[in-house]
């Protein structure tokens, strides 16, 4: 696994920093000089996982590219809350594309950078790097064609998807990343199979792996060190790269604003969300579960699953969700000694 091994240092590397750690062992986020790529005053909800994940990821990418970074941003929460005209929270060159074409716009920027570099006599590998970012709606649904094209052409772009499992800023509608059984405005908790339907949707990281691009990784906002290590690693690679970050949404998930990181942690610890890495189509490692927990621990604090815990708990639905988590554990080797 790319993140540094946990050393004993009172809190190991679980905390963001630690006064006793050598500066080079601290995270980007621990530094008083971090870029704060997305600045204060943005209009994300209280406890927004996406605002946090975006700062974690883009700050790490800024550090890895020495501030030579251009960002294309799909329509979605992240774009809406960060750039209401005429304000912007972004402290790097940033462009808002359409909902569906962030990957294509980023491809164009990368091509332009290449041409500029050649014309300046600095060769075909530009120093300025390009990231594209969007939510799960802009990535797994609307922008999927452009994304797949960027992958298959192996364009030199790092695409980051912030997955909160739905179209949250338009009122919490279902996306193809909405998990089964979750209630959204378009998958109401009614009828014999309440919430989102089992057997639909897609897991884009696996599709990205199938494109056999140089680098694919998943991460959550609960494991900062892991997330930063993956972004930095992605920035060392040229070609198409994809990082998929789970970012809990207090609004859409019906969770308390202070539980954002806790829920991301529970998603990983229950196996609901597998945290892994892949290179050129092969899965190369996974972040192990530290203390395995049943999926109820993850589901119960979220109102989008409240219908599973009524007077008559829907044990059979919970069991199906547990089976999906168990499948992840097995498939991605999430427990020690697990096979890949």
């Amino acid at each position, binding site marked *: 696994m790319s993140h540094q091994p946990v050393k004993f240092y009172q809190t190991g590397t679980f905390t963001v920093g630690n006064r006793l750690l050598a500066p080079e062992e601290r995270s980007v986020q621990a530094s008083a000089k971090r870029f704060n790529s997305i*600045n*204060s*005053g943005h209009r994300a909800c209280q*406890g927004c996982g996406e605002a946090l994940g975006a700062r974690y990821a883009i700050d790490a990418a800024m550090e890895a590219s020495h501030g030579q970074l251009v960002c294309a941003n799909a329509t979605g929460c992240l774009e809406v809350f960060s750039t209401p005209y005429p304000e*912007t*929270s972004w402290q790097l060159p940033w462009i808002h594309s359409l909902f569906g074409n962030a990957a294509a716009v980023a491809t164009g920027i990368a091509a332009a950078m290449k041409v500029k570099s050649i014309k300046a006599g600095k060769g075909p590998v530009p120093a300025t790097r390009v990231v594209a970012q969007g939510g799960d709606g802009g990535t797994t649904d609307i922008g999927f064609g452009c994304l797949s094209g960027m992958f298959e052409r192996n364009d030199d772009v790092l695409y980051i998807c912030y997955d909160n499992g739905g179209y949250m800023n338009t009122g919490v509608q279902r996306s193809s990343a909405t998990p089964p059984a979750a209630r959204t405005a378009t998958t109401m908790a009614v009828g014999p199979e309440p919430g989102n339907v089992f057997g639909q949707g897609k897991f884009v990281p696996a599709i990205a792996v199938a494109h056999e691009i140089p680098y694919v990784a998943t991460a959550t906002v609960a494991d900062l060190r892991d997330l930063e290590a993956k972004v930095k690693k992605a920035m060392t690679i040229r070609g198409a790269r994809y990082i998929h970050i789970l970012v809990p949404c207090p609004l859409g998930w019906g969770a308390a604003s202070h*539980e954002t990181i806790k829920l991301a942690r529970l998603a990983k610890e229950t196996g609901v969300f597998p945290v892994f890495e892949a290179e050129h189509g092969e899965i190369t490692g996974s972040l192990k579960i530290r203390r395995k927990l049943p999926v109820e621990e993850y589901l119960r604090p979220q109102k989008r699953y409240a219908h599973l815990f009524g007077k008559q708990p829907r044990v059979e639905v919970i069991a199906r969700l547990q089976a999906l988590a168990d499948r992840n554990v097995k498939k991605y080797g999430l427990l020690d000694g697990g096979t890949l």
Partner: protein
Amino acid sequence: MDKPFAITLDPGSSLANRTGSWRTYKPVYLDRLPPCNAACPAGENIQGWLYHAESGDYEAAWRALTENNPLPAIMGRVCYHPCEGACNRQHIDAAVGINSVERFLGDEAIKRGWAFPKPEKKSGKRVLVVGAGPSGLSAAYHLARLGHEVEIHEAGPYAGGMMRFGIPQYRLPRDVLNAEVKRILDLGVVLRLDTKVANIRESMQVGKFDAAFLAVGAHIGKRAFIPAGDATKIVDAVSVLRSMEGEEKPMLGRRVVVYGGGNTAIDVARTAKRLGATEAIIVYRRTREKMPAHDFEVEEALQEGVMVKWLSTIKQAGEGEITIEKMALDDKGFPQPTGEFETLAADSVVLALGQDVDLSLLDGVPGLEIKDGTVQVGPNMMTGHAGIFAGGDMVPSERTVTVAVGHGKKAARHIDAWLAGGAYAPAPKHELAGFEKLNPWYYSEAPHTLRPTLDIIRRQSTFEEVQGGLDEGNALFEARRCLSCGNCFECDNCYGVCPDNAVIKLGPGKRFEFNYDYCKGCGVCAAECPCGAIKMVAEDI
């Protein structure tokens, strides 16, 4: 400014948008009281000194420790560490070995010759301390650092009190004791040995003392009536332990029976074993669970070959043997005689049934209240007679070295205030940092470091110290196991997890500050603070 088509405003930063106005709750940094500190009878700031030890600054750690307790090398050996019993880390893996780190710091101070700072100004007041035990030494130390002139009058030939005449050498080597006493005397404290105070008011008058602190301890062994023949040797445990400090070691014979179930009974049985007894048998009327002695000491004694007759009382002592009666616990857990008897071979019987206080020095002092053989004191440690304070084993309390040290400190602070014509008001206590206030996810797994133990053969025949100390490597590791409950240790979590960059990092040692202009009050910082040093407080709306 010329603007492009359809653009009417200048580009601006989102900093113009003060999202702090959304807030209904706000996070505030606070210090909570770590459970170790709350449990320490000597009032040590354990988390505070471990904080320095964690960074390897042992001298700063030792200085922080000795603000409250001048005897860390002794504490690190004889304290029963209630702090570890309260330690939140026990809910993760095992309690932090606070006691072993304390000993490491104490030993380091002796090795490196660290001294206490001399008081900056003199008060011109004189205080008499009666008794050079832990309580008296502690009071003398604190009074001296507060600028008072202190004289200790000690009836015995050496300083240390029960630390010398009660605690065997295998638990507390005398060079350690001497070094820590000397460091207190180096502050200018005058120690008069072999000076028994017969009448406290007279001594105060003669020596022109403005106040007195009495800490004479409890050195009179309690007796029990046991029908015995002339040939049987019956002695009390305190005398046995005391005579260990003299030239002539006590003659107890080959088969020694100790009567009692407290720590003194264990100490005397283990001492007898080391003096060459083939059998050292403790006779105790109840069960091991009910025994007042600390379990680890019972365990060490059993390892050394000390035997225990549980549920037994001594009925009679004859020549070379004693008769014991078997007991049974009744419904309420009290031992009741069964009428079943047994004989045990015994050359001597040592009574370890508790100690009484010699209160003769208080004869004729008006206003004193004496109850159950102890002097009653107020919450300020003052007796019923103005200017006479008391502490340690002679006042009602748990009789341990650590409690005594705590009394000394408390009394010193009140004496200081009383001498200035005021009253000492302790700072209000912070709320407790219970385990539920922590986020234990962030602490990495780290098992407890065990101290080396002397090999069993040497424990049965010599008075060498049984428990070894930690070296620098493992003392540092152990110190770093501290969770820093309730007190920020600058892990940067709040700074990192804020989705609104509303936490300002002030730099090493300066902690953090909230930027309430942008803090939306989501509470992620408080939820993800490992040590519970952030609290969410409702805003006035």
